[in-house]
C-alpha cells in the first residue's frame, strides 16, 4: 500500500543506546511511511520501548541518526520531538494525577488569553470536543485525573496525542489497561488515524493486535532487529518463533524449532 519511492516519514539509522554496561539497542535501523503502522514486538527488555524513547525524546540515542521527511532531525528532548509532530502515548500514560483532564491534555502547550493567563474555559471546551470523539462516556472534566478509571485515564493520554495534529504517533501498549469494548474503540481510532496519513509505531505484547493492525512487523531480540516482515507473508507462530529464538524462520535449526513447538503444546 505504500509507495517504495516515497520519502519515509521517519528513518532511524544505526541507533545505539546503552545504559551503563547494558546495550539496550544495537545498531537498529527502521523506517516508517505515511499512513503506515509498524508493530514492534519482542520480549520484555528486547529494546522496543527504549528505541521508541529515543524517537520521542525521552532518552537521547548514544549514536545513530534520525531523519524526518528525509531531513536530519536531532531529537534531544521531548520538546524537540513535539516540534517534529511526534506524539507519544506512554505505557505509564505520563499523566499528572493531581490536575484535571484539560490540564493534562494541554500540559506544556496551554492555551492562553490575550493577557497571557491560562484560558481554562477554552481548554475545557476543546477537551470536551476531542473526548466526545474518543470516548463519549467521558464526563468528568474538573476532578484530578487520579480519581478516574484506567480507561478514562488512557483516553486522556490518547486525546493528548491526537489533539495536536500528530504526524507520527508512538503507542506503547495502548490497550494494556483496557477492556474489550475500549480496545475495539482504540483499534478503530488507529485505523482512522492511519487513513489520515499518520505514521504509527505500535509497541505491543499482543500478537493478535499486531497482526490485525500492522502493515509491517518489526521483531526485536536483545536490542537487535531480527527482521521486519509483512503480516501477509508470515504466520503468527513464525513471529512467535522469532520473538523467542531471535532468528528468522529459515535460520533456526530443526532442533530449536522442535523445542519451540514442543513447549507451548
Amino acid at each position, binding site marked *: 500500500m505504500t509507495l517504495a519511492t516515497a520519502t519515509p516519514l521517519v528513518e532511524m539509522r544505526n541507533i545505539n543506546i546503552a545504559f551503563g554496561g547494558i546495550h539496550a539497542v544495537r545498531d537498529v535501523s527502521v523506517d516508517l511511511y505515511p499512513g503506515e503502522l509498524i508493530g514492534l514486538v519482542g520480549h520484555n527488555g528486547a529494546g522496543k520501548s527504549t528505541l521508541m524513547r529515543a524517537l520521542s525524546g525521552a532518552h537521547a540515542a548514544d549514536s545513530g541518526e534520525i531523519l524526518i521527511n528525509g531531513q536530519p532531525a536531532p531529537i534531544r528532548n521531548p520538546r524537540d520531538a513535539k516540534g517534529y509532530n511526534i506524539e507519544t502515548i506512554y505505557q505509564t500514560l505520563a499523566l499528572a494525577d*493531581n490536575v484535571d483532564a484539560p490540564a493534562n491534555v494541554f*500540559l506544556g502547550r*496551554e492555551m492562553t488569553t490575550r493577557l497571557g493567563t*491560562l484560558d481554562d474555559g477554552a481548554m475545557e471546551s476543546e477537551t470536551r470536543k476531542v473526548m466526545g470523539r474518543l470516548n463519549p462516556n467521558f464526563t468528568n472534566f474538573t476532578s484530578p485525573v487520579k480519581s478516574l478509571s484506567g480507561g478514562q485515564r488512557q483516553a486522556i493520554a490518547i486525546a493528548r496525542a491526537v489533539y495536536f495534529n500528530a504526524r507520527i504517533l508512538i503507542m506503547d501498549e495502548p490497550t494494556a489497561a483496557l477492556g474489550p469494548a475500549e480496545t475495539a474503540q482504540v483499534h478503530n481510532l488507529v485505523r482512522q488515524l492511519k487513513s489520515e496519513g499518520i505514521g504509527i509505531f505500535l509497541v505491543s505484547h499482543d500478537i493478535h493486535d499486531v497482526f490485525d493492525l500492522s502493515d509491517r512487523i518489526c521483531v526485536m531480540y536483545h536490542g537487535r532487529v531480527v527482521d521486519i516482515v509483512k503480516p501477509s507473508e508470515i504466520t503468527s507462530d513464525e513471529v512467535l518463533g522469532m520473538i523467542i529464538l531471535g532468528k528468522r524462520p529459515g535460520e533456526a535449526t530443526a532442533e530449536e524449532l522442535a523445542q519451540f513447538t514442543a513447549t507451548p503444546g
Partner: protein
Amino acid sequence: MTDLAVAAPKQAPGGTSLRRTLAATEIDMRLFGMVLALAVIWIGFGIVTGGKILASVSMVTLAVQTTVVAIMATGMVLVIVSRNIDLSVGSIVGVIAMLYALLMTDWLPNVLGIQLTNPLSWILALTIGIILGAAMGAFQGFIIAYIGVPSFIVTLGGLLAWRGLVWGMSNGAAVSGLNSTFQQIGGGVAGSIGGNLTWVLALIGCIAVVALLMYNRRQRRRFGFQVRPVWAEVMLAVVGCLAVVGAAVVANTNFWPKSLADSYATQNGITPPTGGLQIPSGFPLPILILIGVTAVMSFLANRRKFGRYVYAYGGNPEAAELAGINTRWTIMKIYVLMGVLCAIAASVAAARLNGATLDVGESNELYVIAAAVVGGTSFAGGIGTITGAVLGAFVMQSLAYGLAFVGVNSPTQNIVAGVVLVVAVGFDTFNRRRGGGS
C-alpha cells in the same frame, strides 16, 4: 464517591443542607475548615480573656506579627508542591535585613553620600535587597535544578552559611536607626494609611470581589458550562464584602495611642474631647503588602503557565518532563521567587525592629514550613494553595499570640505549636485518604 455525584452535585442533592450550600458555592472545603479553625481559636481565647484579645488593637498586632511568616509561606507552598524544601529562608531574611540596615546607615551615606533622610536611601536599599534576594534564590535554585543536589542539602547549607554571613557583614554588631519612610513598612501609627484611605481601599476591595465573581461567571458562560446558582454567587459576594468591610472596621477602630493623639491635638490646636482624640489608624502597610503578595502569588499559581507547571511537576515529575516542560528552569524560578519573598519579608522584619540584629529571621524557616503544611500543602507534592498557607500562618500565630496573651510561657507555646502541627496534618491526611477515593 462515584463520578456521577462529582459531575452533578446540583441535580443530586444529598447530605445536610449546610453541605449542599457549600457544594453549590464550590468553596474549597479545606479552606473553609481553616477559617472555621481560626474562628474557634479566636472565640476560645476571646472567652478566656473576657474579649480583650478580640479588641481591634490586639487583632491588628496579631495580623502584623503574622506578615513576615505569611509572606514567605506563599512561596514555600510552591517549593513544597514541587517536591522540594527550603530551609534557608530564615537565614536569607537575616542577610537581607542586615543588608538593608547597613546600606541605609553606613554604605549609602559613606560610599555614595546618600544620607539617611534622603528618599533615595530607602528606595535604593529596597531595590538592592530584592535583587540580592532573587540572586541568592537563583544561586540555590541553580544548584538544585541544574546540578541536581537535593534541595534539603543545598538549603541546609544555606541555613548555616547565610547566617554566618550575617555575622560577617556587621562584625557581630546590631545595627539600628533606619530611614523613616522605610520604617513605615513595619506598620505602627506612621506606617498605617489612616481612616479615609482605609474606607476607599475597602470599597475597592468589595468592587474587586464582585468583579472577580462576575468575570468567572462570564468565562464559564462563554463555553456554556454549568455556573453556580445566582443565590450562591450573591452569598459569596456578600460574605467576601463583609470580610473586607470587617477588616476595615477593625483597622479603623484601632485608634492612635493616647499620647500620640494628645500631642497631635496640641499641635493642631484641637481641644480633645473627654477621653482623648480618637484617630483611626487604618490598615497597616505590612498587611497591605501581605494582601498584595497573596494576590500576586495566587495569580502566578493559578492563572499562569508557570503555576500549572509547578503543580504538574509536583504531581508527576516524569510526566511534566515528557510533556516537554522545561522542568529545571521551572524549579529554578521557584527559588528565585522564594528569594524575592524573603527580601520582602526581611523589609517588614527590619522595619519593625528599626534595624537588624544577628538573629533576625532565626528559625523562621520552621514556622514558614509549618504554616504551609497546616495550610494543606502536602509533602508528597502537587497539592497546596497560597491562601491556605496564609491562613495556616494565621492559625499558628493566633495560637502563639493567644497563649502569650493569657500568660503561657514560651516553652509551653512551642509544645502546643508542635502538637497542633502534627494533629492538623494528621487530620488532613486522614480526611484525604477517606475522601481520596482512588
